[in-house]
């Protein structure tokens, strides 16, 4: 008994901070995901000439909470012929992997749960890929054809696009020279340029592959509602379904964060070392103040007293955020002696803003695509992956490597590296397109060929 207590105290003593962060993530993330969904619905509504959720709270701001309550109190249905254990396990696996991957991400120089793990990005990618088991097993356990096909599609798709995404990451990592998340961002600060600009092809490849990996449109075949009802989620309802949903959106946040870290400069503001752009430090607070003022203006237009108060509270929160964002920027103006003391907060708070801002933009792009594009067919998806993205990413790694060697040979640094990497990227693109072209010529209309290559 004493040994148990001892081990427990030792464990808690050693790991209390990550544990706390972990609990915080598990507690807060569903809320964040809920609001991401609300934002998605609002964006969708905006693009489709309608209003979106408007009933719960002013402008539907409380909709996520209503949705969550609805999902939680729904009847929990397990199909008669389902494999109960696996059916129970699958959504948990899915969401567990997604949440675990969050541990490796760094929102700012100081915000990271698994502090300074050497394998950094690799950890995030590897662990988030485990979520596929949740999908595959869930689809299998439901004992339904639609679910099974969804699961099969999903695993085939993930395995294919993982290769392309991994290779794209390698191209970016070549510049960083490290896997550690913090060091990657530091490397971008040292170079004074985001790796996304140095390796645009890699960024593009990762962008496409990450959409496919998170099963988002136009690659949302595993859950294509018009074909497979809801794919692997068909038989899931209520809480289990919401776990899948949570996993999907968490995965979106994860891939967006990886892209942000590696290609978009993490928590660095645009052009971090260009000093005449220092005024960008004021942008966050101006933005938040602007949103707050807009909220205030909307207050009198709310129909009910409760809604007015709620809107007021939202505006207040925006002002509070603006205040927090403003503090580290403005304090040095009044007391120059505090510059050094404020510096870490400056990086941390503004960095957090920039990171979240970039992640939001990335996710916005996902949504934009979803509401604009039709869905790929499965064989087309596979062809795009195997015949274009994978060759492209592999060639890109090669030419970027050559470009880097050339760059170091001529002592190019930062922006000057563009001189070698841009031609290299163009070269990679040309070669990949050439391969694609040759492939299409040699295999006219494979679509009507044999069925065995469907899952290539």
């Amino acid at each position, binding site marked *: 008994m004493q040994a148990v207590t001892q081990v427990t105290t030792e464990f808690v003593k050693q790991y209390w901070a990550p544990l706390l962060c972990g609990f915080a993530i598990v507690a807060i993330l569903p809320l964040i995901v809920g609001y991401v969904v609300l934002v998605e619905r609002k964006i969708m509504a905006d693009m489709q000439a309608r209003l979106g959720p408007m009933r719960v709270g002013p402008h539907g701001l409380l909709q996520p909470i209503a949705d969550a309550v609805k999902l939680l109190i729904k009847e929990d249905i397990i199909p008669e012929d389902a*494999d109960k254990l*696996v059916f129970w396990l699958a959504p948990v696996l899915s969401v567990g992997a997604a949440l675990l991957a969050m541990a490796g991400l760094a929102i700012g120089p100081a915000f990271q749960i698994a502090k300074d793990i*050497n394998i950094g990005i690799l950890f995030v990618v590897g662990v988030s890929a*485990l979520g596929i*088991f949740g999908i595959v097993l869930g689809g299998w356990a439901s004992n339904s054809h639609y679910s*099974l096909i969804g699961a099969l599609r999903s695993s085939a798709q993930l395995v294919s696009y993982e290769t392309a995404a991994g290779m794209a990451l390698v191209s970016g990592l070549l510049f960083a020279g490290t896997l550690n998340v913090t060091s990657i961002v530091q490397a971008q600060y040292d170079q004074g340029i985001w790796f996304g600009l140095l390796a645009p092809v890699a960024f593009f490849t990762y962008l496409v592959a990450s959409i496919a990996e998170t099963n988002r449109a136009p690659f949302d075949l595993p859950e294509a509602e018009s074909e497979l009802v809801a794919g692997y989620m068909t038989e899931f309802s209520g809480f289990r379904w919401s776990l899948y949903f949570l996993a999907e959106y968490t995965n979106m946040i994860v891939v967006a964060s990886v892209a942000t870290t590696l290609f978009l400069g993490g928590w660095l503001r645009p052009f971090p070392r260009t000093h005449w752009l220092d005024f960008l430090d004021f942008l966050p607070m101006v933005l938040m103040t602007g949103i707050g003022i807009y909220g205030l203006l909307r207050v009198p237009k709310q129909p009910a007293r409760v809604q007015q108060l709620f809107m007021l509270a939202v505006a207040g929160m925006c002002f509070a955020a603006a205040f927090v964002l403003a503090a580290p920027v403005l304090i040095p103006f009044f007391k120059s002696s505090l510059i050094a003391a404020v510096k870490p907060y400056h990086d941390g708070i503004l960095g957090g803003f920039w990171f979240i801002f970039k992640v939001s933009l990335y996710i916005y792009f996902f949504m934009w695509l979803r509401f604009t594009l039709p869905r790929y067919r499965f064989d087309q998806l596979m062809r795009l992956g195997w015949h274009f993205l994978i060759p492209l990413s592999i060639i890109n790694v090669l030419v970027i490597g050559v470009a880097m060697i050339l760059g170091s040979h001529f002592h190019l640094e930062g922006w000057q590296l563009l001189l070698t990497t841009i031609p290299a990227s163009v070269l990679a693109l040309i070669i990949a397109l050439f391969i694609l072209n040759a492939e299409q010529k040699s295999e006219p209309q494979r679509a009507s060929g*044999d069925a065995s290559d469907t899952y290539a």
Partner: protein
Amino acid sequence: MLDQVIFYLFSAVAVAGAILTVTRRNVVHSAIFLITALLATAGIFLQLRAEFLFIVQIILYVGGIMVLFVFVIMLVNLDVAVRQLRFARQKWVALLISLALAAQVGLMLWSTGKMPGQGVPVLSAVPADKLPPNSEEVAKSLFSSYLLPFEIASVLLLVAMIGAVVMAKRRA
């Protein structure tokens, strides 16, 4: 103390997972337990601060190979598999091999116990900052001291890949 507890926890999970893998009738359950065993092994790697090995274990074995396994299993008609005899013809061969393996492990434990100053190997925690960066070290040793084996392994994989393509092409 903590490290030992964690180690034994992971080991127990790994062993239990391995045993369940071979005894389950349902192939999918077997796969799940195999994944469990592999993950537990990865956990032991992590506990030994071999971060790179840990993630390679996860990405390659769990994320890559096992996904393909499960993918193939999905296409299998389970009712037939369940009706088939458990432990097919290799029963005795497998028993023999496991006995030999058990004897080896026992011998190792026994002989190390005999040597002066050495008991059952006890793990001691190494602080993370004392170790050089993991993946860089792996890369260095792979591309310098172990370059030849590395290249040979690559060629082997290439051969396998080309072989697979040739076989697939012939069938198509």
